[in-house]
């Protein structure tokens, strides 16, 4: 929310200015990039910077259109309509952020179509009502192209409605700075952590679906801040979560031993 403290975000390029331009034109925004590279943090930061409320919805495969739009609930007086987060954002003029939107089923994502073109309206069939979006309303979705399976991809008709930012893991120097900014880790250990992350990212496509994210690096640094030995912290935060494959685990463990000495 806009009145909270400034989220820590280190710009990688001119994405802040571009986002501001997109918001000024109220264009729907898509943020692409691998898990844990800072997509959500970027959206939080922009909402804070623009001074707009942010409503985040974590999408999952059981999510239905009702979860976004709203539903009737029963109470003592009978049935009562409750707005879903999307409707709420459209009414109040918030930024609605649908995180990992490909996780939601394709028929669910179709409800956002009318909000993302010139109509800027959300029809609610069950109430026979059309909510006209507040002038401040903006829709942002995040999307991880790493899940490139047929089952988990956005429909072309959905993709066509957004302007997009492509994120990747920050470069080594920036990632070191992020680690230091987030956790106060010293530069030497932050550098080693980042080079370990690069080691693991080299295995993407060779048995690892995704590399080690910046978020996991932050976790490792936090564990080290708690006094955990670096090698143990790396095993716990960087290796064990991302793989069950014994050979990959062994290779990464070896890389940890080789780097930390």
């Amino acid at each position, binding site marked *: 929310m806009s009145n909270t403290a400034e989220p820590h975000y280190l710009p990688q390029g001119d994405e802040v200015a571009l986002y501001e331009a997109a918001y000024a034109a109220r264009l729907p925004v898509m943020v692409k990039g691998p898990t844990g590279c800072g997509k959500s943090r970027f959206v939080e930061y922009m909402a804070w910077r623009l001074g707009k409320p942010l409503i985040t919805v974590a999408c999952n495969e*059981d999510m*239905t259109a*009702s*979860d976004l739009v709203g*539903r*009737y609930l*029963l109470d003592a007086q*009978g*049935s009562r309509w409750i707005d879903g987060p999307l409707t709420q954002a459209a009414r109040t003029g918030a930024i609605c952020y649908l995180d990992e939107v490909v996780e939601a089923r394709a028929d669910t994502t179709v409800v956002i179509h009318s909000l993302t073109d010139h109509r800027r309206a959300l029809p609610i069939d069950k109430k026979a009502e059309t909510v006209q979006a507040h002038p401040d309303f903006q829709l942002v979705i995040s999307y991880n192209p790493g899940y490139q399976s047929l089952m988990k991809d956005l429909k072309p008709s959905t993709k066509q409605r957004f302007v997009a930012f492509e994120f990747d893991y920050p470069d080594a120097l920036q990632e070191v700075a992020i680690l230091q900014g987030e956790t106060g880790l010293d530069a030497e250990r932050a550098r080693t952590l980042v080079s370990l992350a690069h*080691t*693991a990212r*080299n*295995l993407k496509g*060779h*048995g690892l679906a995704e590399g080690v994210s910046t978020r996991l690096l932050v976790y490792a640094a936090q564990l080290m801040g708690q006094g955990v030995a670096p090698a143990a912290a790396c095993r716990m935060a960087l290796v064990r979560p991302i793989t069950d494959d*014994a*050979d*990959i685990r*062994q*290779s*990464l463990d*070896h*890389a*940890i*031993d*080789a*780097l*930390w*000495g």
Partner: protein
Amino acid sequence: MYGKAPPVVEPQFEHPQWLAAWRELDCRLPGVQAVFEACMASTLARLSEDQQHGLWGIGRQLGKPGRGPEPVKAWLTHWPEVVTQLDDAPLDDVMALVLALHRSPNSAAITPLLGSLATAAKRLGSAEHLRHYLQLVQQFMQQTTGSIHGRQQTQPSPGLVPLLEQVPRLLQLVSLSGLRRWVEHGARVHHHHPQHQADYFALQSDDSLAMLQRQRHGTLLVDAQRTLSLSLQALCKQDTPLVPLSGDDAGPGRPTPIYQADPQHPSLGLPDVLEPLNGVDALTRYRLMLLHAAGHRLWSTPCVADNWSPMQRLAVEGFEDARIDRLLLQRWPGLRTPLLALLPPVVEGACNEAEYACLRHRLAVFNRAVLDPRFDVHDPHLQDFVRAFEAALQANANTSAMAELALRWVARTRRPSDQQPSVFFEGTQLDWRDDNRHLWRFIEDGDEEDTQPSARHDTAPELHSLPPRLYPEWDHVNQTERPDWVKVYEGLHPSGNPRELDRLLTQHQALMRRLQRVLDRMKPQGRERLRRLELGSELDLDLAQQAWMDWRLGHNPSERVQQHWRTNERHISVQLVMDLSASLAEPAPGSELTVLQLSQAAVAILGWTLAQLGDDLAIGGFHSNSRQEVRYWHIKGFSEAWGDAPLARLAGITPAWSTRLGAALRHGSRTLLQRASPRKLLLVLTDGEPADVDVSDPDYLAQDARQAVLHLQDQGVLVWCIQLHPAHEASVQTVFGRHYTLVSHLGQLPQTLTQLFLRLTH
């Protein structure tokens, strides 16, 4: 008239001891004297008097029985070695075995036996173990020597001589217990086939090499290959293929890693097996080799070698290797511990310049000085160069700067003794370094030997077919797998005329119409409504109204008023494996059609059914002609649409040969296991029991197939057998447990097969 034998001329030895020994040996066979003279000096120096008497005495005995001079020569050559290794060498046991060989048809094995003793004594290290070795040979001899009608042994053991000839090499590779397992395996499985037995023990067959590989101690490269490749990818972003180098590429020790920097086909040869060394485990040793070679790839550039002497090249390699190692340590400081543990503890002055060429030693001391921070050097030249090396590293020196430094070092430290023929090797070989062939570029063609590891050529060339795949087979007698035992050749089945099947199918029109109605009901409906949920995705208005009325009437309303839609899709992969053995051509009882024709009709209907339902189906057939030739034919692939092409292949089936079920299951399930569908079904259509021409044990193939089925079940595949012949129920139970259907009336096969499928998948 008989000619008079020429008088025996006694050689004239100056030394009385030599003459006495020669008389004691008392052997005039040709060539023996030369061997006697060659070994005499060292024998006198090394053996005690008793041992010498034993040597000559046994030598005399060996010369008498008329087996020629070879046993005596082998004895004189090798026994002194054995006695030097083992003070209490088991002379009596050796003689007992020699006598047993002499009395059996295996007397040709006496010489190779004596020849193997020296290596055996050296590798086994105790008289006790040597005795076990002799017992092993004796048992093997008794087991494999052929007899007629079980009475008198008349046929020599086909594998004994090849085995004994290989023993020196085998004992370099495996321990005595490993050798025992390898020998027992070969003796058992090749008992009835002399030629195969000889090939096995001469290490000429695939299964022999595979079995030997399993007995080796240490970590095999094949086992570590994946994790090593991953390390290479992770740490250096390189995907150089790893090639195993077998032990005898470079003599008795382990082979030196070879990095081929060919830009088209780079490869890294690593020893095929490694053991822990100095507390460093084998995997870490492999990784150091890997990273050193990767370091060369990252940081080394080739130099022109033509104008440099071998010594200069050696020095350049030494300096460049040291630079690479330092860069590795800089990047991965954790490598220091294993690297220092493997670094030979060379010390200055260990090499005597009066006797040896010490260049390699000086280079090793230099290497230790720059790699081991705790090592101090005293030689001022060496100190200068260590300083210069450190300065060059600071300045990010490249290969040519290192080469320049190395050439200066050679010029400064050159000694006349460096030209001596005997080179001081001790402690000069660093475990993780490769042979640096990638570092040199020759402008003129040299005569360097090409030692690039090449593919084995001992497999028979196979034309017009994919190379065979080797599969193991389960040996139920001793509960182990026979590795690489069966060769499976796969191919696309030749096509026949699909219209013949149409004729068969017309007889089953009624069945197909009935099926069509069933299938229409079974087709996935896409979405399914789940009602009466407490937490669903939306309100179920009917139920909500009911609850509302209950509430108003004062009853307890149900809270389950929501509903949810669920997608309901069939996602199943089916692999049908057909037994195409010769018995399929027999007429089916009670029908004018053959078993083959009924099977074809049934499979065609099944294929049609699955195409209707949209399920993935692959069809394959198999038959076998001994373990050397199992044929697996593809009739329909998973991604292929049901149509004329698969029907034509189905129509083209010609039954032949036998049923090696286990190998077919292992091969046929490979693509099935790779399918993404959560449910996998493997159907086996057979009219016989597992049997093959080269197997006499009736249980063997059934137990092997049982293992294959269990293995598939572990991987989540439902394996179901359709047995067309009621007589084989017992065997089918052994293999498939309760997962089988017996077709009592063959005319009903099409119905049975399709109904079974629907029952299993609905």
